[in-house]
């Protein structure tokens, strides 16, 4: 269920997640309610499961909106402020959408020494260009602590595939490869 809905614009913009300024009182798609219920019931009784649930929401809907935070708080018997405190602390959680076309750059030491910072610079610049010229708000450039393949740096992860030994000149092509349709067999994201 959650897989089918993941990353579709309909879900995120269904109103329930509070489009900016919305109060979340809009009518709900029953399927979305099911997903929320499913995610909430997967957690155990204790606070221990809080971060796991928040990560699941983040992954499914690209953010943990205020409305969802209230629901989660209710579920765990916490105040919304306590949940907001957790969401705002962790880099992988966010109340705002970050964009669903993700390009993950390794910011680990091995990649840094092989010029990873230059890749970061050029990819960020290319992405910003596309975002304004192609009106593509879905693009997100993320820095990961380390993608774990230090021998091959600098590495970039696009559509769940790691590209090894990236050159600064490839930045534009990498960003463009995210914008096109996903090649067969590759992750849509």
């Amino acid at each position, binding site marked *: 269920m959650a897989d089918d809905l993941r990353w579709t614009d309909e879900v995120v913009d269904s109103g329930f997640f509070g489009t900016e300024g919305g109060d979340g009182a809009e009518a709900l798609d029953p399927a979305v309610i099911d997903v929320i219920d499913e995610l909430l019931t997967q957690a155990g009784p204790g606070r221990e499961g809080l971060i796991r649930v928040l990560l699941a929401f983040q992954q499914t809907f690209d953010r943990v909106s205020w409305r969802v935070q209230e629901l989660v708080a209710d579920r765990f018997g916490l105040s919304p402020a306590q949940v907001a*405190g957790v969401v705002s*602390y962790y880099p992988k959680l966010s109340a705002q959408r970050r964009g669903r076309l993700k390009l993950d750059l390794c910011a680990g030491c091995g990649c840094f*020494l092989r010029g990873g*910072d230059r890749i970061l610079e050029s990819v960020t610049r290319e992405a910003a260009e596309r975002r304004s010229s192609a009106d593509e708000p879905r693009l997100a450039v993320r820095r990961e*602590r*380390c993608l774990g393949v230090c021998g091959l*740096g600098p590495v970039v992860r696009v559509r769940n595939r790691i590209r090894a030994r990236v050159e600064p000149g490839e930045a534009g092509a990498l960003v463009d490869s995210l914008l096109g349709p996903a090649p067969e067999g590759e992750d849509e994201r």
Partner: protein
Amino acid sequence: MSEAMDLDGRGGVGDDDPVEIRICAGSGCIALGALEVLETLQAGADDAGVRLEVDSRPCIVGCRGFCSQGPLVYLPRFDLLYCRVRAADVDEIVQHTLGRGKIVDRLLYQDPVSGRRCRGLTDNPFFAGQQRRVLARCGVVDPEDLDHALALGAYDSLRRSLLELDPSGIIEQVKRSGLQERGGSGFPVGLKWAVVAEAPADTRYVVGNGEGGDPGLTVDRTLLEGDPHGVIEGMVIAGFAVGARQGRLFLRSEHGLGIARAKRAVAQARRQGYLGSAILGTAFDFEIEICETAGASMGGEETALLNVLQGRRGVARPRPPFPAVSGLWGRPTLINGLETLANIPLIMGSEPQPGGALAAGTKVVGVTGAVSRTGLVEVPIGTTIHEIVYEIAGGCGDGEIAAVHLGGPGGATLGRDQLDTTIDFSSLRDQGAHLGSGGLVVLGERNCPVALARFFVAFCAEESCGTCPPCRIGTTVLLNLLDLIGSGAAAADDLVRLERLCQHIRKTSMCELGRNASSSVITGLSNFRDTYESHLSGGGCPTRDCEAAPSGIRSGVSE
């Protein structure tokens, strides 16, 4: 070596001999196309009438640490290692090697130092200088197959520990082994276990800490991807020894493949009675739950980690009380790194060695940077940095090595004259260094120690939980100062300020992250004073490395 060399002195490989072909399927080799090689090889091997071992099932193995040469294909019977294999090479391997017993010369690893081609593991300097004990099964066992691991000795030590020893006997043996915590300060493991076991409580926990502080090559990833059962076995023995019934395996979410394999391994172990209730028919119950981080885990600082596991903000707290006395939900909690846990089955596998012969043991070191062969290597404690950098990693090519940085973000930058330092806890401490997560970064002539220090300080500033001001404010001010120096805009008294600030942060921070945050700068200042000084007064960076670092590098993890 002639191309037409026969394997085993025979003309070919007979139909009745199953040839085991191990394809490295760690995340590095997969990124380079190992799975395509596997598919093609299987199809090709079937055509040639040669069966793959283990019922023709794909024989994938975990990481061998030689990622820069992946994808690796290894034929153990002939000790034949092919590097950088592409799907397009498979036909030649099948026809030439499997069919006619010849070596495909161009797929052998060529040592850039001597120009010699290496046939297998034994004549490859990267492997020959290692002593693989903790990683013994990585690259050998199929990490997704418990039966394969069992055939190679997994859970033998658990059996011995549970059926032949009592908890105090196990703790005694760990103490006598002299094992020290592999990450961080090298605390004696047996002592830690004894404290947890003796703390009065009805419930105790074991936490496997897979958040090695270093953003770099980590043993955690390799162990999880290559031999997850070794870690699980260590955890179960630890649980039995300290009287815990629950374990948490705390893993970085970046290590997706490792997490998936760990989850699978936990499920397999549970099904076969190595985990769960009544383990091996005894009255001992133990469960392992896998927890992923959401980032910002303070580089694995213990008290912060406990907060994350309890669903809170991952901030550190003052110690004491130590987690061994008051950890998860106030209960005694044993926290050990994954490499430490993977050492446990080795120690418990046999009778205690007289005279603490195991005291030394090994250390896994991730070598990266300006060397010919980067990768993850396991060396005996007492090996010198020089041996690792020059013999195993093959040195710096034509250039000179300018410096090495050991121990990750909180580690130390050592100069060329300190390369004879041995990898052991006390001699590193003498040099102001520590093993940390075991990252060994080699700087060439074009890498600037100031830029590297800045990189690590930026890591600490980002990771800082913000609880104590010396770390929260100090690391940010330190970073600004380093930026000033890097851009050539600093004056001589800025170096004095830098030095004083480093000492303040070191002396007044609450936890290890803050206490070590400035150590790359402190050791840099003492070993590379000239380099820092040449940055001053409009001089700029002599290697131009600093100027290349964009100022945006520390602006948030996400865009």
